[in-house]
């Protein structure tokens, strides 16, 4: 990851609002993510975690607020980003979905080389080399010529991570990456994510895996009802939550 100047956060989200008609999903969210940090977004379903994450790469268009990457606003008017602003921000962010969304008509290798060639303009040799290197990293080099449908869910998600990493994004966004997987399969995906974190990858992770949040995240941000309730290092927040909603949520997920 490229170092940012001084104390400037890599991702700065300020006053983000989003509603669908009457229903407010994000009610003025302000959150910084520093280079190399892993931030876990937790909270009950409907809290706005996924919407917040999807606003960072404009899969959802916010109504108000500012999103900066590396100190630069990603759109002059975030509620109406231009085509070139959208392409630029998506080039810089890597997204991993709950449902993997690999391209089923392409081989695993082609899934990872396609955007490198189309978006970054890499030669097919360079793209292939990078793809194989990433497949090695997620432990799936032998699947290079397979179809995604011939891979298990956990394998597909690791391939999806490699596909996103191939564009060398400055920040990786994970939207409940293990929620569609059985626990024993989730482990292999979480291991890959942990290795990324150890390599200094900046990551924002919407997750229900509190074990992962506790062991890997540098910071946990608790959302409820479209607001950021509190944030802090996982050990402190899990043992001593400052807010009633956080305490209730943690009690529920830890079944205590």
């Amino acid at each position, binding site marked *: 990851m490229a170092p940012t100047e001084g104390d400037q956060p890599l991702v700065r989200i300020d006053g983000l609002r989003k509603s669908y008609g009457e229903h407010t999903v994000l009610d003025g969210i302000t959150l910084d993510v520093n280079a190399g940090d892993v931030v876990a977004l937790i909270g009950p379903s409907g809290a706005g975690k996924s919407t917040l994450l999807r606003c960072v*790469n404009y*899969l959802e268009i916010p109504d108000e607020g500012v999103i900066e990457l590396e100190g630069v606003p990603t759109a002059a008017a975030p509620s109406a980003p231009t085509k070139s602003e959208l*392409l630029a921000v*998506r*080039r810089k*962010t*890597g*997204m991993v*979905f709950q*449902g993997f*969304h*690999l*391209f*089923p*008509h392409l081989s695993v290798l082609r899934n990872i080389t*396609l*955007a490198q060639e*189309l*978006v970054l303009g890499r030669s097919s040799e360079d793209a292939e080399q990078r793809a194989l290197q990433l497949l090695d990293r997620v432990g799936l080099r032998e699947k290079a010529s397979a*179809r995604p*449908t*011939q891979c298990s869910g956990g394998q597909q998600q690791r391939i*999806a991570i490699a*596909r*996103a990493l191939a*564009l060398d994004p400055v920040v990786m966004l994970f939207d409940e990456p293990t929620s569609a997987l059985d626990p024993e399969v989730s482990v292999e995906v979480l291991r890959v994510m942990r290795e990324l974190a150890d390599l200094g990858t900046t990551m924002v992770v919407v997750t229900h895996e509190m074990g992962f949040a506790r062991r890997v995240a540098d910071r946990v941000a608790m959302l409820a009802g479209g607001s950021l309730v509190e944030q802090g290092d996982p050990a402190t927040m899990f043992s001593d939550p400052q807010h009633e909603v956080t305490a209730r949520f943690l009690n529920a997920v830890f079944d205590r």
Partner: protein
Amino acid sequence: MNQLDWGRVLEAIGAGIGYTVGLTVIAFLGGMILGFPVALMRVSRIRALRWIGTAYVEICRGVPVVAWMLLIFYGLADLIGTDPLIAATVALTVVATAYIAENYRAALLHVPLGQWEAAVSLGLTRRQLFWRVIAPQGVTIALAPSATYAIGLLKESAFAAVIGVSDIAFQARTLTQSGQPGLATFAVAGAVYLLLSLPIAAAARTIDRRMRTRSAM
């Protein structure tokens, strides 16, 4: 009651098979090729193109194939001559294009939203997204219903007999007019249509099974 002259009936109907199969194959391939641009018009963001595409599909599906054949045979004689085979081929292709265009359209709309989101998140432009991710999957998804439609096309091709193409139906009618028993002759003709449709049905099932593993559906 006359006895069925098997030799004569099979020879005549056999001579018709080429016309029936040829008509069906050409109309099907034509529809597969021409249907795609019509489907693109149907899903276009440009209102005028959408309108043209919709008008084409509704008009071509709404008028019976036999009416198209008569219309083109008698109406466009100045333009395409008086060869019934050409008129029948054009008519069947026009209708096949409309039906297959709808298969493509439905298939394109059936590509899951996640495919769009993944492609968009990787920074693909709208054009790249459509041609590299959505269109290949849409064509694949449309193959199975289109193969099934080919069975319907095979049967509809029998209307070509009305304007004088010497296909299976035409041969059967001619045989009855020259004294062959009607029930038996048309039963043989029907059996031949059935036999021709079986491999198409088998192909449709195979395609359906294969393609399910190649799309996100």
